[in-house]
């Protein structure tokens, strides 16, 4: 597998991280090296092996449907970059 510069730009866009040409070049070199290491995985035949998402076979516990949280907007919004009338503000979203 070979990574290309356009791959780097595509994933940076997906990840919402601005990347300039020089950084993209640098990332390409480093990520290519890392993917060489990762490629070792392909040597093993894993047919029939069940994927493991969690470190042990655990089961989801369920919460009772009870309201436990109270209004903490003042506290939470005191650390927000920009708020107005209780709303978080962002540049105008155009649909």
């Amino acid at each position, binding site marked *: 597998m070979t990574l290309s510069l356009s791959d780097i730009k595509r994933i940076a866009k*997906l990840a*919402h991280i601005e990347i300039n040409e020089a950084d993209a070049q640098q990332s390409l070199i480093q990520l290519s090296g890392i993917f060489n290491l990762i490629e070792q995985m392909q040597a093993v035949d894993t047919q029939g092996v069940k994927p493991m*998402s*969690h470190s042990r076979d*655990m*089961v*989801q*516990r*369920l*919460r*009772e*449907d*009870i*309201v*436990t*949280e109270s*209004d*903490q*907007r003042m506290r*939470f*919004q005191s650390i927000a970059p*920009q708020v*107005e*009338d*209780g*709303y*978080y*503000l*962002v*540049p*105008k*979203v155009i*649909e």
Partner: protein
Amino acid sequence: MQWETVIGLEIHVQLSTRSKIFSGASVAYGAPPNSQACAVDIALPGVLPVLNRKAVEYAIRFGMAIGATINSPAIFARKNYFYPDLPKGYQISQLEHPIVAGGRIIIRTEDQEKIIHLTRAHLEEDAGKSTHEGFHDKTGIDLNRAGTGLLEIVSEPEMCSSAEAVAYARTLHSLVRWIGICDGNMQEGSFRCDANVSVRPAGSNVLGTRCEIKNLNSFRFLEKAIDYEVTRQIDTLENGGSIIQQTRLYDADRDETRSMRSKEDAHDYRYFPDPDLLPVIISGEWIEQIRSELPELPEGRRNRYIQDLSLSPYDANILTATRELADYFEQTVQLLPEQGKLCANWIMGEVSGRLNKEGLEIDQCPVNPKQLAELLLRITDGTVSGKIAKDVFDSMWQGNGDSADAIIDAKNLRQISDDSEIEKWVDEVLAANQQQVADYRAGKEKAFNFLVGQIMRMSKGKANPAQVNVLLKKRLAV
């Protein structure tokens, strides 16, 4: 060329739990912005989701109601995309192993019945709301809705007209309310439809390129948006164009759909199993318990009304449109088991008419089923006529829970079936209306009705109309 339409619907049903699907914040509607967005909902660093049992139970209940399979384990996955009203940068949803798989519902359009199969129904969390007005060049984000539990119900593309799509949506709307998992409030966004619409040459078995129309928040908009979209697609194709797969938004003001984003910049959602949530194991016992607690479903009740109560399919459909109406009918008819049709007529006529006029719902009806049944009983046993019964009903509506009998007695409305008393009124009326008597005898049938009316008026409506008829005829025949 002849075209046929193919429609599949994705419906987001907001679950009527008290708390959110992954946090303990309230889901009550209409709170001040962000006052119901807790640490988990605003995605503070380090917070974690814990699944609401009720949300799972509701999904299973829905699955049972449509004869679906419940997947165990059910798996939650992250759908990754950036949007300001999506605080974590991903939505917890389901991809593989959704909680509900398959199932079917029956829809009815004017003259036909059709089975629509469901692909799946999965649990997910809602996003917050963006407000574009009131902040100058900014958008305001309210995260109160973020994390509210949704059941996304996906149909197979089996509907072929906007009428079928609306029938499907209405049936589903009625069902989720019937089984108590959603309040169905479309204004508040509790029931939101997205429609996948495509067209193809009639008879073709290949699906055309589809467009998804988002956020149709009324049945009327659903119908109009589909109709517009179908016309647009056919026009495009007939003019040699092609359909681009895209998401479109319905603009109700202009009655048109327009492109939101095209497939080119469609998201790569990078779904993967959410490592913060474990597989949900749903035991057979739990499923059985939920099944056993399921109310009789609209379809079953409808069929029972037709078979056992001899109601027409039309009446049965109307009476089972909502759980509340059906329960009202059920409770009434239980007290008058032989009088299904009479109960149906009264509920669909007098009761519904009055509710409509006053803008009330059936569960706000001032006359309860027991009162109504007692009144109808007095019609069947001849105590009052249908006409008087309407007056009694009116008194009940305005009254304070008085029984029919109490009103009848208090107002002295008991029907008079004593021949001699009625004969007295007949004689009086005949004496006072010689001209009409002559007309009748000359063959004018109408005059007979006039005379009946006069007798009824004289009796203040209390004379038994059937007897009036008989006695009047007898007198006139002399």
